[in-house]
């Protein structure tokens, strides 16, 4: 639809016309601001904990475990320098060989969800699948935060 609109505008005499090809789906999935009647509906981006610990794939499990536990967490997200999610360390992986590099112990390619997902639907999905937490990333894979089911349920409860 937007390519046709862009060509139409050029045909009507506009000289500097741009087509944002991925459109609003891409914009909202990146957690960027929006306006409109649904703009204030809670999303999982609102409920995700952004202070979740992160580590690099080359760090040692023992070093990461100590840091994560000092922070009071039981999991850590493995990211690269661009904060793109590469893997996840849950309690089980954090308890593995302390001398091993993270990339050998991490759970590869964890499921991720976009921050513009309605929180009510996600709370239901997490209940159905008995998931305690899910990762929230932008559409290009950058970490937004970790969403706990209890946080999603609490925010969804406020919504109803």
């Amino acid at each position, binding site marked *: 639809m937007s390519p046709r609109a862009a060509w139409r505008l*050029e045909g009507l005499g*506009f000289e500097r016309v741009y087509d944002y090809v991925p459109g609003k789906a891409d914009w*909202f999935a990146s957690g960027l601001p929006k306006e409109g009647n649904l703009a204030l509906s809670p999303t999982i981006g609102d409920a995700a904990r952004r202070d979740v610990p992160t580590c690099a794939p080359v760090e040692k499990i023992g070093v990461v475990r100590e840091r994560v536990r000092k922070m009071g967490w039981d999991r850590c997200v493995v990211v690269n320098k661009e904060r793109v999610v590469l893997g996840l360390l849950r309690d089980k992986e954090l308890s593995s060989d302390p001398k091993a590099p993270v990339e050998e112990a991490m759970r590869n390619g964890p499921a991720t969800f976009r921050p513009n997902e309605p929180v009510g639907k996600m709370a239901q999905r997490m209940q159905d699948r008995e998931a305690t937490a899910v990762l929230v990333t932008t559409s290009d894979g950058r970490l937004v935060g970790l969403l706990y089911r209890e946080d999603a349920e609490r925010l969804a409860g406020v919504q109803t």
Partner: protein
Amino acid sequence: MPTAIFRDEVRRLVQEEGAQLVDVLPREEYEEEHLPHAINIPLKELDRETIARLNRDARVIVYCHDYQ
């Protein structure tokens, strides 16, 4: 020829160049959710009369839902 752009360039053009954002989706979809400061000119209504709202001297960025 219109230039295809992506998110970072949209942000830059709006913030630094004062580009105008035009949502070409139907009015109901625009009213639900749209990009900040975007105006709505549905594709079916795009003509000489409706584009009179746009500044011809500024850049114009159009968008719809996704790769439609």
